[in-house]
């Protein structure tokens, strides 16, 4: 648990530091000149808060140490050295043996700025920049040179944003893209603002048409890139969750606590209750009727074109029907070798006689049984008796099994 917490915290800290580094990169003299530990940022925060409380008198080095007591001494010394050298804290009065220091307002504001960049990846700063530029340009006080700088600056910022989005959309993992999703928020309003600035530039300074053309293409590229990136995020979320990038618990909580109007707005275009599938009777019937037939999974092996020959020895057959016929035949014959059909059939009704006759014929026709039925050519007509038409025949044992 603790280890997990430590890893998570380390990952979060790493992300924070990486944004710091990106922000100060344009100002840094050496690659390792930026802080590598988020705690140092907190120290600066604590320090500025202490200066703010101290007011116009400033703080002495001892007071600074006391205010930052949560941090090790050598870290504080190091930070004070750097901050003093860069002018973030300055001697309160310009005279020798000065013990009090005061903090620079600019440094603290830049810290706030850094924190904002951290949260939104700089996109909202771009928004504000655009708004400010628009207001400034609308005032008509700017020179053509300033207007051109605005056009170039906005174009460059948008192009870099596009490059990052395209790289993430095409080459990056979905997780990386999701982390940078704040870049996609309010893309529409960013485009609108940039377009507004573009229109003002073109209206007041027609000679800047070349720069405006580049700005136009950068805006269009940003529009495409943000659409594509959003599409990839949506696709990664899956069809079943396309409408909810939020976890289901959140939806459920919303459903329980929302007001009538809020719920109605969410569900305005839902015809039936969302969560459950419908099983139509026709579907049930179809599923039952269309049950897959069991297959053995084995197909019959191909038969040889050569006749089987004596592949199946006569002794091996076992056939319930043949056994039954043999039983019937033995019962009819008793211990005799032959019996007249007329004798077998006499004294029974036709239904029974017919069945017996059928069995005898079958036994005779079965090549594996050694019986045969031999008919003579004459037919006797016997009105009133059973059977009324009789062909004389003999049912007898064959000389041996065929």
């Amino acid at each position, binding site marked *: 648990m603790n280890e997990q917490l430590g890893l998570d915290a380390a990952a979060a800290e790493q992300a924070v530091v990486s944004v710091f580094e990106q922000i100060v990169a344009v100002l840094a003299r050496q690659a390792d000149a930026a802080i590598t530990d988020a705690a140092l940022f907190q120290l600066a925060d604590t320090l500025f808060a202490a200066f703010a409380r101290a007011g116009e008198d400033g703080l002495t080095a001892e007071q600074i140490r006391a205010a930052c007591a949560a941090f090790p001494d050598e870290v504080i010394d190091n930070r004070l050295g750097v901050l003093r050298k860069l002018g973030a804290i300055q001697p309160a009065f310009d005279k020798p043996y000065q013990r009090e220091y005061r903090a620079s307002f600019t440094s603290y504001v830049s810290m706030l700025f850094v924190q904002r960049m951290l949260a939104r990846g700089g996109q909202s700063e771009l928004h504000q920049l655009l708004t400010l530029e628009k207001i400034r340009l609308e005032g008509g006080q700017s020179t053509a040179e300033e207007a051109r700088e605005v056009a170039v600056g906005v174009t460059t910022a948008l192009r870099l944003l596009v490059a990052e989005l395209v790289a993430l959309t095409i080459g990056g993992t979905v997780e990386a893209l999701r982390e940078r999703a704040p870049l996609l928020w309010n893309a529409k309003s960013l485009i609108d603002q940039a377009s507004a600035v573009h229109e003002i530039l073109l209206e007041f300074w027609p000679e800047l048409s070349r720069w405006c053309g580049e700005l136009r293409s950068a805006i269009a590229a940003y529009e495409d890139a943000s659409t594509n990136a959003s599409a990839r995020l949506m696709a990664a979320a899956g069809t079943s969750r396309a409408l909810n990038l939020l976890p289901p618990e959140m939806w459920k909580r919303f459903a329980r606590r929302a007001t009538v109007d809020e*719920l109605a707005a969410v569900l305005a275009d839902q015809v*039936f*209750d969302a969560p459950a*599938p419908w*099983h139509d009777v026709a579907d049930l019937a179809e*599923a*039952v009727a269309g049950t897959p037939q069991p297959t053995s999974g084995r197909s019959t092996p191909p038969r040889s074109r050569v006749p089987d020959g004596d592949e199946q020895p006569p002794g091996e057959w076992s056939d319930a029907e043949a056994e039954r016929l043999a039983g019937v035949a033995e019962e009819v014959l008793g211990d005799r070798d032959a019996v007249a059909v007329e004798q077998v059939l006499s004294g029974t009704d036709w239904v029974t006689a017919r069945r017996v006759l059928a069995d005898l014929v079958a036994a005779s026709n079965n090549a594996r049984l050694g019986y045969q039925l031999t008919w003579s050519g004459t037919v006797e007509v016997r009105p009133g008796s059973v059977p009324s038409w009789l062909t004389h025949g003999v049912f007898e044992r064959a000389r041996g099994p065929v």
Partner: protein
Amino acid sequence: MSSAEAALWWARARAEGPLRVPSATRTPVGMLRLVEPGGERCWLLPKPPDDVTPAVLPELRMQAIPVEYPNETSRVLAAALRCCWTDSQASPWPGQPTTVREVLDVVDQLVPGRGEEVLLRLGTGALRRLHASRWLDVDDEAQRVCFGPRVATWPDQDLPALRELCRELPFPRPDWEPDR
């Protein structure tokens, strides 16, 4: 009950599916009230007019909620119908409780020749899905299966077809045991 309250009940049911509420709750307009056999609680379900069901969605060219393994799920629901709907002249709800074993037995007779492991795996999955969408109420502990409230939303004109379907289905065999 005011129409605003009724609208709220409808919205809740649309978001959460059938609602299980104490029996003392008044029935909002246009909703179906199903009292559970115990009588303490009842289900509230939206009942669209004219017996319209989500089956019309395809006609409207709208996407219905997809079912995973639709055929298997439908077969298990049909088998549960066979086991729970004992009085076929009455409406299916609430039906008689049955067991998981009996339902799976009917499925096994419908699709013979599948191994027990396959039958159990697919059958259990289908029962869970049907339980989640409130078509069935499956108690895993007691291995008991009852109808869920959604069964009562089959409109009356579908009942003859359901009865016919039930007649075609085999009964559970009393001595059948899935050998695990």
